[in-house]
């Protein structure tokens, strides 16, 4: 039997639960703990029914078991406000943190763009940006690897039903974190992010539009090829990632129109915004797990 790296999930909400479904299918990761703060939470009960150990005492309830259960990777799906503390406590015990909040303490990770760059860096915390960032930054990068992008802008539209209370309460975090990552990971000189919440029924599938202003005449064929290649990369872990229209060229503007349909693990398929986050987090953790199993990465 292949050895697996043991994981803890913090936050038994929609994201944490969907992530749990994905981790259970992983060849290299084994979800062992689910951490919550409300003993009556449905998410904790569900995790317990799925065979996980649970605690309702937050990360403090997990800490005494980290060594004994050999937890090496933890996922934080709580909020930017508590993430710093969670990360500090678990890092001290040598646990690598995958941050699904917009806290962004650690470097941004968008798997098809920069996951491999994180190998061998000894990072103990990586941040998954935002749902809109995961959906769009691969396209910004696909264009900026062809020619310089002076300005990259993304518009993410998510269904009202898939916008959780955390996103709603701190919508500015989304705009700031995403625009920062458009620059740092996407390679645009300046980044801007816009998010729209649409209440239509039945809920609309996540839509994302990427507008880039490139320096000089767009190299059309190269950009088209690069965009298609990048779509295929994302589809490896989000099969419902689809180019709806574009790339459209208009002067030095290049626009790409995307749809992100989720796998429907725990969340409905329209919530592609949540699916792409959990899928990206799982893929990121798998890469680190493979490194640990190969002996090329030792956490301390």
């Amino acid at each position: 039997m292949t050895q697996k790296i043991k994981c803890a999930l913090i936050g038994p909400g929609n994201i944490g639960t969907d992530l749990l479904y994905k981790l259970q299918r992983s060849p290299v990761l084994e979800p062992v703990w689910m951490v919550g703060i409300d003993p009556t939470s449905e998410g904790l009960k569900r995790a317990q029914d799925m065979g996980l150990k649970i605690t309702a005492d937050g990360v403090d309830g997990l800490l005494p078991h980290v060594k004994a259960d050999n937890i090496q990777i933890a996922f934080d799906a709580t909020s930017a406000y508590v993430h710093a503390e969670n990360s500090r406590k678990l890092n001290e015990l040598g646990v690598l943190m995958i941050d699904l909040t917009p806290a962004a303490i650690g470097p941004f990770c968008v798997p098809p763009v920069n996951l491999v760059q994180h190998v061998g860096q000894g990072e103990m915390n990586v941040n998954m940006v935002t749902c809109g960032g995961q959906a769009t930054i691969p396209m910004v990068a696909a264009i900026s690897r062809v020619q310089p992008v002076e300005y990259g802008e993304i518009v993410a539209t998510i269904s009202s039903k898939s916008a959780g209370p955390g996103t709603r309460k701190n919508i500015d975090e989304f705009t700031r974190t995403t625009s920062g990552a458009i620059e740092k990971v996407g390679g645009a000189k300046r980044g801007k992010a816009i998010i729209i919440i649409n209440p239509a029924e039945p809920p609309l599938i996540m839509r994302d539009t990427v507008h880039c202003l490139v320096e000089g005449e767009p190299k059309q064929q190269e950009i088209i090829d690069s965009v298609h290649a990048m779509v295929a990369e994302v589809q490896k872990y989000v099969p419902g990632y689809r180019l709806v229209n574009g790339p459209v060229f208009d002067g030095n503007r290049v626009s790409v129109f995307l749809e992100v349909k989720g796998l429907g693990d725990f969340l409905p398929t329209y919530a592609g915004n949540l699916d792409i986050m959990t899928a990206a987090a799982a893929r990121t953790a798998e890469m680190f797990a493979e490194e640990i199993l190969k002996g090329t990465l030792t956490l301390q």
Partner: protein
Amino acid sequence: MNLRGKKITVHDMTLRDGMHPKRHLMTLEQMKSIATGLDEAGVPLIEVTHGDGLGGSSVNYGFPAHSDEEYLSTVIPLMKQAKISALLLPGIGTVDHLKMAHELGVNTIRVATHCTEADVSEQHIKFARKLEMDTVGFLMMSHMASPEMLVSQARLMEGYGANCIYVTDSAGHMLPADVKLKLGTVRDALKPETELGFHGHHNLAMGVANSIAAVEVGATRIDAAAAGLGAGAGNTPMEVFVTVCAMMGIETGVDVAKIQDVAEDLVVPIMDHPIRVDRDSLTLGYAGVYSSFLLFAKRAEKKYGISAREILLELGRRGMVGGQEDMIEDTALTLARERGLI
């Protein structure tokens, strides 16, 4: 209904909603002359921002001729009596923009959300209240929500600290009876000290009638734009509304002749196209589509050969909301491909 002696605040939109038909390219000189004219005419509150609010500068909505900072810092020092407001759409602008506007002397901040998504305004409304700004919660596309839904959303904004709530007819789709029902229901649910406002679009030529209906059920702030300069078929024309108010004895404090002159002498000459109910802006009203989609749909018609009317109807069918300007080109592309045009 006798409204004689009723005092209301008219809020000018020429330099904000009017940015839409100007493709956000108003010059500082145009801003100065119109703002000064409005101030002299007695308009007490004037909005100055990118058409899509603070931080609206983008590929998606259009890059303005000048930044919000430049427009605001040009206009504010010129005002003798008028106060200046700024619009902010969470998801587009942030608290950082709000801080900037406050530092430049903006008096009123209007935090706008889709009419069912008021909870995204919490951090902005709370912050504006902390700064002791006149803080308005602005529920867009109100034709899409029931009176009960509007009440729940208005109460959320009131709870965060908004001292005025707007029921906004962004699509110019509402008729006077809807206005009375929705605003009347919201009025009854709010604290007596919370003000109620109405923002209309003239797509069905109901701007003035709807605004009077709003006043009848207790609205005390009414948005209007000189010569109607605004998205779609424009906003409620300020000079017409003020004249009607004067005839009905509603007190706006605005000089009838002076506001007519601002509209005629300063605003009409800067229009890039006549602001009127044409087949496309009429379609906005008919199908309940966000008014600022108009020019984008007309551009897509030229580029992809699908009529603006068809594009707008499709956007209405798909339940698009304010801010989804990206879906106009997307829809035109999809329709054009289905028909073998591209």
